[in-house]
């Protein structure tokens, strides 16, 4: 954002920039907590990792009030219809984080009932590796979404971001 130094007591910017800046720091996640990753997602919102530092502590269980869906857990074929329905109800612009191995690729569940990656039915912006990912890794995923917003990208466009697991 092109802020001038405020020595004269004012700054100039573009409306898009200031909207993007505000939007980036007030992402409201919709916690699509399905299985194990949901517990780590609760830690991510909990006292130690404290997602409030990034302006995303307001977890909204209503898709109408949220702009970031964190899909945390194994998505089965039966559940996939629910996930898609919730995604469809979210207002634009909407972002999706695929948290964990199951959500990204099916993970260790090579079985008849598990969808092998949610990108088969919803567009994904950031993939976070791990089974489940540590909360700090998920924070990194959130920051990547913030960077995308800052750059002015649209959801589902540009390159996908893959966050690797670190020891």
């Amino acid at each position, binding site marked *: 954002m092109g802020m001038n130094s405020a020595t004269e007591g004012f700054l100039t910017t573009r409306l898009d920039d200031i909207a993007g800046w505000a939007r980036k720091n007030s992402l409201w996640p919709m916690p699509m907590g399905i299985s194990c990753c949901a517990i780590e997602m609760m830690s991510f919102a909990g006292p130690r990792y404290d997602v409030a530092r990034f302006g995303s502590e307001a977890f909204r269980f209503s898709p109408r009030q949220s702009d970031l869906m964190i899909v945390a857990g194994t998505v089965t074929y039966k559940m996939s219809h*629910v996930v898609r329905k919730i995604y469809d109800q979210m207002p634009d612009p909407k972002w999706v984080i695929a948290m964990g191995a199951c959500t990204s690729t099916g993970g260790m569940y090579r079985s008849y009932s598990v969808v092998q990656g949610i990108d088969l039915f919803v567009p994904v912006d950031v993939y976070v590796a791990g089974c489940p990912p540590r909360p700090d890794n998920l924070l990194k995923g959130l920051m990547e979404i913030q960077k995308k917003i800052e750059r002015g990208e649209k959801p589902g466009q540009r390159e996908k971001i893959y966050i690797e697991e670190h020891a």
Partner: protein
Amino acid sequence: MDTTTVDPKKRIFRALEDQDTSVTFDDPLENDMILNMGPQHPATHGVLRLLVRLDGETIVSAVPDLGYLHRGYEKIAENTTYHEFIPHTDRLDYLSPLANNVAYVLAVEKLAGIEVPRRAQFIRVICCELARLASHLVWLGTMAMDVGAVTVLLWGFREREKIQDIWDLLTGVRFTTSFTRIGGLAQDMSDETTAAIRAFLDQFSENLHESEKLLIKNKIFIDRCEGIGYISPADAINIGLTGPMLRACGVEHDLRRDEPYLSYPELDFDIPVYHDCDTLARFYVRMQEMKESVKILYQALDKIPNGQINASDPKRVLPKKERTYSKMEELIHDFMIVNFGINPPIGEIYQAIEGSKGELGFYLVSHGEGYPWRLKIRSPSFVNLQSLPVMLKGQMISDVVAIIGSVDPVMGEADK
């Protein structure tokens, strides 16, 4: 005035103006409403779906719908060796992965006839009790949050993070542990871990007491929990409830006492039993259980002997990694166990432990191969959820979340 001759619409309108009269419709079924709750709902603890038929605010009947997290564990188990299935057990009841690891390897060891050294047994007891604490802390936080007390969730997670740090020291990971091995453990417990557990326990009782004070001295919490979600002891036994659900109905049944496994006979602990059969009783049972777990952990840490952690059975117990890299014999055994499995004799067994939700059992059928022919998981959450239709009938719609919270279901295990 003769009300029957007046136009019904006017009659309703008039009745609404007069606060002392109530309106009844001719056909009460017209009042019925079907409410769909879940599978994506903040208070259903995962992906439980509940269809509720309502008459006004009262529940006429409730039908749970499962399967949104059916991952096909039993099919996967038939296609993996006995060792390969251990990581899958972490993700069954993902609130207490360590206890599931223990339950599964106990079953395999019973099938194969392997005796585990005493030190490993004590470490497994510590694993089970730490897992129980971690699981109950999440239950405490989420149930309190469901009825409106958010502070307890944050305090519970503060304590749980400390337990996860201990898991990190003990197993190398903070969440999905995969710690046990058939015939022993992945690694020994270090002195650092022992000290960390002691340090945690020393401050835990105090912190738990603070959370408890927030709830049991709170009239809103007591009023919301007392007397709702009643299930009679006869129904509870008939449905097959286990764990805190059963003990809140006045039935003293705990597998740690009734079918002793590991080192539990050497440890001294009480089994909390309450007779009220309602949500509040289940709350008290779990709170008391946490205090008993602390007692067990102190004793186990005091009594833990030195010695080996793996049974000496080279054909079926994985050798130490450093020996695998340097000795030919161990390399061969490691290769054979990893690739072809441990081949237990033909037979079938059932082994259960007292998990944090209730009786967690594994039924295994072996045909003498490296893969189980059939593995059945007796998951406590699945059976406990069956009591929902009984408990919800006749209750108010606003109590549903408190009742589900008191069942403490984990869908990963209920849906398998």
